């Protein structure tokens, strides 16, 4: 009994070492602290997961952590991408009423079976990878690390993309707001044919 008690007490400590300084953005129960735009019915909470499936819509973090303004940070989430699905995690973005978010960057979630050649782990249309390092229908760990001018995406602990914004960087005409700045996070509901699930979304703000 004592051993069990010790184990129960120890377990969180062991986990915490790697998870030190992380704060959850999603409470696992409802969308408190989050706000969906044009088509809110696209996002549902089930069994501790946020499910994105429906009309195009984006779910913005508008909660209390850092008053939803982040510059340097490490974001972690677990993601499950159904076959032929597309989604993404935006950072440095801000709430907008409709359309694809203008501000910030998208860290792509995209099944290998989906028509878009920019796959999971891509920093969308900035640095893309042609093959998803994650399997469809299986949970994987998504890490986004932003520090100064550099962005790193990791899938299951392995680096997918590393990108440093050059000093003379000019975003493309289509995505004028794709510049490192500050902002919040958003989850993408891409289209009715896509179903992507998120859980355990947590962030560790880093020194600015």
């Amino acid at each position, binding site marked *: 009994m004592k051993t069990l008690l010790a184990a129960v007490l120890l377990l969180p400590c062991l986990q915490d070492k790697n998870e030190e300084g992380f704060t959850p953005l999603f409470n696992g129960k409802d969308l408190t602290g989050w706000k969906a735009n*044009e*088509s809110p*019915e*696209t996002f549902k909470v089930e069994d501790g997961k946020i499910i994105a*499936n*429906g*009309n*195009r*819509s984006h779910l913005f973090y508008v909660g209390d952590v850092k008053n939803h303004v982040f510059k340097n940070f490490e974001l972690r989430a677990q993601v499950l991408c159904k076959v*032929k699905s*597309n989604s993404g995690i935006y950072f440095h973005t801000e709430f907008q009423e*409709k*359309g*694809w978010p203008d501000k910030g960057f998208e860290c792509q979630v995209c099944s290998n079976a*989906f*028509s*878009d050649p920019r796959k999971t782990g891509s920093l969308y249309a900035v640095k893309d990878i042609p093959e998803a390092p994650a399997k469809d229908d299986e949970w994987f760990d998504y890490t986004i690390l932003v520090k100064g001018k550099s962005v790193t995406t990791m899938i299951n602990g392995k680096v997918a993309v590393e990108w440093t914004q050059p000093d003379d960087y000019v975003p493309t005409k289509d995505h004028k707001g794709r510049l490192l700045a500050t902002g919040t996070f958003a989850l993408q*509901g*891409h*289209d*009715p*044919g*896509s*179903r992507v699930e998120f859980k355990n979304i947590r962030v560790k703000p880093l020194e600015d």
Partner: protein
Amino acid sequence: MKALLLLLSLLALQDKKPAPATDPEKAGPDYRIQGEYANGSTGAQVVALGDDKFDVYILAGGLPGAGWDEKTKTRASAKTEGGKTTVSGDWAGEIADGVLSGAGDVQLKRVVRTSPTMGAKAPEGAVVLFDGTSGEEILAGGKPAKVVDGVIWASGTGGFFSKRKFGSIKLHVEFMLSYMPYARGQGRSNSGVYPAGRHECQVLDSFGLKGENNECGGIYTIAKPAVNMCLPPLQWQTYDIEYHLASDGKPATMSVLHNGVKIHENVELKKHTTSAPDNGADDTPGPLHLQDHGNPVAYRNIWLVELK
């Protein structure tokens, strides 16, 4: 004998296919399912294939030219059985009473889009080739085009030719495809608009398809449209074309708005369409030609402005 039987049964099969429909009232129940569906953030195109079957394309962001991300197309199939149209495949749902609904709490209403340039009036100084009354300026077999209820039909005419020849022009033309649900590819309501009789801007029922250089809006075998703006058959559509003759060693060029959306900008035309009726030099005037490809396709409100 066997071969004869086979031939007879093939003919019988062919006979089953109805003639192209030219009147929405007589186009049947599939026609009322076929069409465009949308809400503010998703679009869908439902294409009739005959025998109560349909292809369904779900488009991320909205309809082509109206929000679609121009990449994401989820393909599904639909079938009507016992009065119920069910969608299955990569997306599941149903179509009932003008609403396409299904997975992801998606509800899309059937919409009929009208081109922003529909009914555009000929500006002062324009040459009116056909205003719905007289066929005097647009000839078929050397005679004025036959006008039926304010429109002219290309099939059975050998094609239309403007009475006069023109050089560089700005052209407005409206067309309506007939409904041929059993036909596929180049056999589905085919016609074409040829400025100077040399370079074809394709007219075809390629509603819902990819938008290739031989489909509607394609400059035939030269350039595919930036986006497939083809609307369903039996709906009027517009082309607004700017065509420049070759000059100073530069090739002829064409820019096209299809249903008000820019699909080509100054595309260089370095060869004539194979079936071009005029193979004159590219820096000389030629007649406007509307192709008869054997299928009923209607035209109306045709005018042009001559450019210097």
